[in-house]
């Protein structure tokens, strides 16, 4: 576990060495701020629901950009060989990189705390709901990070890793709007797979174990798939 923490701290610091981190954060804040506040005063309600509603799809575009380099860059430069010949296990590597990705998602969400703070001046804001929604957002982020990590482990090309990650995440995010494509028999499965539907409750501030279980399962599947890919490369 010590090794995983070391890999985590290296990867997390790495994010802030390159300018990509700051660009991603800036664009994310710009887009969410605009999309959220452009309708906020029309609805005239002191709640963040419409902000959180944006996240399943926005994260599907942003998170793969965060995770694309985690394995692809190492594979491309060859430092993957160095990493694997250090006394660390696959689990250390995967968890370290995964935690770094989740921590960066948290770093992206951190400035958005300004929204509830400003809104709270306009009326009474239910902080419990806000807290629950932020926790749920982290879970959503973690699930997407795991998928992005898996996509990154597949290829040495960061662009491909990013696109594969986006396709999988975006599929989960918009599948609930595509239900008319599915035959009746697998409709329930398609609905269950939708990250947007599971996130709806979260956005309302309701923490349901079924939703938590969904996000944790997606994260676990992503990480396990990454493990399988690493095993295969060996």
């Amino acid at each position, binding site marked *: 576990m010590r090794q995983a923490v070391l890999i985590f701290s290296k990867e997390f610091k*790495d994010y802030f*060495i390159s300018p990509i981190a700051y660009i991603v954060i800036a664009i994310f804040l710009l887009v969410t701020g605009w999309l959220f506040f452009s309708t906020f005063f029309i609805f005239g309600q002191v709640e963040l629901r419409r902000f959180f509603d944006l996240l399943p799809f926005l994260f599907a575009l942003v998170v793969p950009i965060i995770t694309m380099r985690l394995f692809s860059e190492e594979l491309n430069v060859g*430092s993957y060989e160095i990493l694997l*010949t*250090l*006394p660390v*296990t696959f689990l250390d590597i995967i968890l370290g990189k995964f935690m770094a990705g989740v921590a960066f998602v948290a770093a992206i969400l951190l400035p958005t705390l300004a929204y509830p703070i400003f809104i709270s001046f306009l009326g009474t804001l239910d902080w419990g709901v806000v807290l629950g929604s932020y926790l749920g957002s982290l879970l959503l982020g973690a699930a997407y990070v795991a998928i992005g990590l898996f996509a990154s482990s597949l290829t040495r090309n960061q662009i491909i890793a990013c696109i594969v990650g986006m396709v999988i995440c975006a599929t989960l995010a918009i599948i609930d709007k595509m239900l008319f494509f599915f035959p009746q028999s697998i409709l329930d499965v398609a609905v269950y797979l939708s990250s947007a539907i599971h996130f709806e409750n979260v956005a309302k501030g309701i923490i349901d174990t079924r939703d938590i279980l969904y996000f944790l399962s997606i994260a676990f599947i992503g990480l396990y798939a990454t493990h399988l890919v690493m095993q295969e490369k060996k």
Partner: protein
Amino acid sequence: MIHAENLTKYYNAFCAVDGINFEIEKGEIIGLLGPNGAGKTTTLRMLTGYFAPSSGDIRIKDVSVRENPLAAKNLIGYLPESAPLYKGMLVYDYLDHIAKIRGLTGDAKNKRLRELADKCGLHGIMHKTIETLSKGLKQRVGLAHAMMSDPEILVLDEPTSGLDPNQIVEIREIIRRIGEEKTVILSTHILSEAEATCDRIVIINKGRIIADGSTRDIKTQNGQADQIQVTLLQTDFEAVRSQLESVKGVRKVQPMPAESPDHLKIGVTCQELSDPRADLYAAIKATDWVLIDFHQEAKTLETIFRELTREN
């Protein structure tokens, strides 16, 4: 120290390493030689735990690479080909990170970093970004990385490839210094390098070991005897031949293409394990021939290597 048994690696259907066995003693500097694609890197990667062998096993101090890869990795310092270090990091940050992963902390870590900076000459570059370093400097950082935990075994894949002659000499010097205390395994396709730095040479071709021994052993095993070349001024070949073939230890005297028409150049093939140079000189001295050149053409590792690894 290291014991490889029936080591095999398949990439899908392609057999990169084909059931090789070797034994490496403590304190040896081993050179792994072979043409490109012979299986050198694959062998080193299995040794260092990057690849799992398709079959067979390596035991390092009785630790199986297969069963206990983590313990085996702790015994080995490894520098892959062309030192693929994290490009964006500062040299200090990088070595600090590796030190922590190798389990060093606090004063012990700082002391080790200082030692390595001395050993590998890194003092001036600790605060530079790795991607801005020249290949030679990067290789030195890579060596420091490999030696971080003061491992008993050091594995270096093509440590001097892509370096200029001065850098090659520097790196070789460092390797030789390390080799005084450690077991060093390096791969190369530069033969003079293997000859200059290694105690023992293992030649690999198409995934199999085709020669194993000290440079001298390999030369005597695979060479016919050495040839002595003599150049004389304005002399008749037949006379020379009858004179020199009667010398003890000489097997055959042949004419060779000379540099100028006045010269007569001959090649004297000796019998196995004989050195008739003194007798030859005495025989020439007894005549009135003018001797211009007299030298022994040792069979180089290069020729042996080519003979061993040639197609068919």
